[in-house]
């Protein structure tokens, strides 16, 4: 027996088991994490059925009618459920999304399982998705369209859906005019104001110079007036229509169609309908702006901000890191000082990221940005242009945060380029710089990209330093738009990582926010995976090309 155990130990099997166990635990954790956020996040967009039932919160109390979506259920100890009048040591209860926040003040409530009676799923239970106040749950009564009151009509639902589609088209048009056209005019107006201020500062505000500005301003004003006129007519068409509905407890409510995004009756929907609806909602999540303090709508600005920031960071960090690595490995004499620099660079990667945030705020934002404002944009002072957190400073801060990774990876790549290849190039009369540029650096690209992958993965997931140097809860405009110079490095931006924190912990409506936190987290993970996979593919194809050469 003893020798059997000894044999088993000697065979190395326990070590193999230990290794396999460690790998399995890691795999289970990663898969489990992604599965958790995927299930929790993605379920949010599914059109759940609407239940209508009688509910009494105590056995002897009078029951009232409720309707809503069952979101979650749990079984808790009596005391935790607030010692209800129903019997039992543990109490089963459900989280019900009742919507109608404008009427009842809350749109989620915990209800006791024992109090539910006569639960049905009527086909005509309606959900109204609104731009404000969240969802409305109820039954459709009538539609007011063009001054007519349509009621009890067989085609009432179809009419309503059609009206809403039309309304949404108008709404999109309004949004386009407001955001792009009027936004553009405002942007130009602001530029004119700055130009005027500049003239005043330079004491060149001669009547001739000012006249030109005034003429431009008048032209803009004219355009602005015509846009507002269009807007007024559009708003008039929007506001004319409305619908009336009754809630589960019989209250009649009137909702203007201009506030409605869509209406649907989940209980009457077939499975293909629901799938279609699901993807529509998911698409909206990806492409829309957030609403209602980020608890509803989409997260497009956050995706855009994250990607844009990572791209700008990559554009800054790659040349910088590569140049530093080339100097360290190829030109600097290898002595104590280069060794110290190398150690310092490696340790820089371990500094907590919030420290970089503080540095970025102090050095980039206040010092550099402040100086830039004084030197180049005196006309906009006291309002700062670059002397305030923004896209450029956030990208720069993350660039210095990730530059050690790029340096280390590039140095490693440079050291792998065989001597024979360098000598071959030098023997043909190439100078050292030409050899570097034409042969060594191309062979180092896979290593550089490896460094960049690591840098991007780290930068896309950072939140703490960004909170100090440029990320905001809600950015009024994207970093790229149609107004010259098209890329606005001074603007603040939204970021997925910060969005998760904001929605999850700063939101007034915890229940509504929760699934969005998961969905956003999933998206952030997916985004990082996509960025990485792209880089890995590029690297592998390059590496294939250079592998044979590296063995000489």
């Amino acid at each position: 027996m003893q020798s059997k155990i000894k044999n088993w130990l000697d065979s190395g099997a326990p070590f193999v088991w230990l290794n396999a166990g460690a790998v399995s635990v890691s795999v289970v954790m990663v898969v489990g994490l992604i599965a958790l956020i995927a299930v929790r996040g993605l379920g949010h967009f599914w059109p759940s059925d609407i239940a209508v039932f009688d509910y009494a919160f105590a056995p002897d109390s009078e029951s009232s009618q409720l309707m809503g979506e069952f979101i979650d259920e749990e079984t808790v100890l009596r005391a935790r459920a607030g010692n209800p009048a129903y019997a039992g040591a543990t109490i089963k209860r459900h989280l019900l999304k009742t919507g109608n926040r404008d009427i009842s003040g809350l749109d989620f409530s915990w209800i006791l399982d024992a109090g539910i009676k006569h639960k049905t799923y009527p086909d005509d239970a309606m959900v109204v998705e609104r731009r404000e106040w969240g969802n409305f749950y109820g039954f459709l009564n009538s539609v007011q369209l063009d001054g007519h009151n349509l009621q009890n009509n067989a085609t009432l639902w179809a009419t309503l859906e059609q009206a809403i589609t039309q309304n949404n088209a108008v709404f999109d048009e309004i949004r386009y005019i407001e955001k792009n056209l009027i936004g553009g005019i405002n942007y130009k107006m602001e530029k004119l104001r700055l130009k005027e201020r500049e003239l005043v500062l330079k004491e060149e505000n001669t009547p001739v110079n000012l006249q030109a500005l005034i003429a431009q301003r008048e032209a803009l004003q004219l355009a602005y007036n015509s846009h507002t006129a269009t807007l007024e007519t559009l708003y008039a068409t929007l506001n004319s229509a409305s619908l009336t509905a009754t809630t589960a407890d019989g209250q009649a409510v009137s909702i203007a169609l201009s506030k409605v995004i869509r209406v649907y009756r989940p209980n009457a929907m077939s499975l293909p309908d629901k799938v279609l609806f699901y993807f529509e909602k998911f698409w909206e999540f990806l492409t829309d702006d957030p609403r209602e303090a980020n608890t509803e709508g989409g997260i497009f600005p956050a995706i855009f901000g994250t990607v844009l920031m990572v791209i700008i960071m990559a554009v800054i960090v790659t040349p910088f890191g590569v140049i530093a690595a080339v100097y360290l490995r190829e030109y600097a004499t290898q002595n104590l000082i280069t060794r110290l620099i190398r150690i310092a660079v490696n340790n820089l990667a371990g500094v907590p990221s919030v420290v970089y945030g503080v540095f970025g705020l102090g050095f980039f934002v206040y010092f550099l940005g402040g100086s830039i404002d004084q030197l180049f944009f005196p006309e906009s002072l006291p309002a700062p242009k670059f002397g305030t957190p923004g896209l450029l400073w956030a990208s720069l801060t993350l660039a210095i945060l990730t530059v050690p990774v790029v340096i280390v990876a590039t140095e490693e790549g440079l050291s792998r380029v065989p001597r024979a290849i360098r000598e071959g190039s030098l023997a043909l009369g190439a100078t050292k710089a030409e050899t570097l540029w034409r042969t060594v650096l191309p062979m180092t690209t896979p290593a550089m990209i490896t460094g960049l992958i690591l840098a991007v993965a780290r930068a896309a997931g950072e939140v703490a330093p960004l909170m100090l140097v440029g990320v905001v809860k809600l950015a009024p405009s994207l970093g790229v738009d149609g107004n010259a110079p098209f890329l606005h490095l001074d603007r603040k931006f939204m970021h997925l990582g910060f969005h998760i924190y904001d929605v999850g912990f700063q939101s007034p409506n915890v229940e509504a926010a929760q699934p969005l936190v998961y969905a956003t987290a999933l998206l952030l993970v997916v985004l990082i995976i996509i960025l990485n996979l792209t880089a890995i593919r590029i690297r592998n194809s390059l590496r294939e090309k250079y592998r044979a050469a590296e063995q000489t």
Partner: protein
Amino acid sequence: MAAEKIEKYAEDIAVTESSTATRTHAIDMNNIVDTAVDMKLANEKTCIAVSNFSLFYSGKQALKNISLTIPEKRATAFIGPSGCGKSTLLRCFNRMNDLIEGVTTAGNIKLEGNDIFDKSINVADLRRRVGMVFQKPNPFPKSIYENVAYGLRIQGIKDRRTIDTVVEKSLRGAALWDEVKDRLEDLAMGLSGGQQQRLVIARAIAIEPEVILLDEPASALDPVSTLKIEELIYGLKDKYTIVIVTHNMQQAARVSDYTTYMYMGEMIEFNDTSTLFTNPHKKMTEDYITGRYG
């Protein structure tokens, strides 16, 4: 027992005597042969002249007071046991040793009368005039075409037509054209070792150097490829001055006009190849070429 010992002793004496005899004989030969080489060399134009040249790797002497003239448009071979400094000397001709830290030299090397270690010499220009082929084929991780065009691109030549012509001519010159003409855009690493080495030679001749240095160019190749390379080198010496390092004596005999035997950083003998192999005038050379060395 005693008789055996005496016999052995007598034998030893005989050996010593005979070797002394050969040495005396060799010394006699020496003067005659030296004059013959000198006369032969007098008809050659000097390409590289090495005089009293020594080289130290961080203080450790690797070349000891070498003097040597390498004739133009001839193939000169360096032979000698491994570690004797053949590569070191060869790499002085295009100043490849500049890359190694701690190398110091004494004496001088002249290429067509100009000291290559002179301050006014541009090393890149020197290397354009003195091409080099290394022991292991080292094509760049680029297409076959780009490998050959590399030297031209370095010189700033952009005209596609010029480059096309030179690439074809060089590949033909390296006897590789027929094998690769249909796949010029393929990666050079896809070629066989022998083809790669010929590609590297094509790359070197594309910039029309005056001298081509070859450091054991066939030692990593199979016999068939070796033969091809040898034929190629044999053909190249009409147009270029060739200096080839080899540890293969048959190879030296086959391709070179002159041969230098080196040992422990010293030049032992420099001679016309056929003389050196059939009638060496130094005992050490004879030992080496007859395989009695080491």
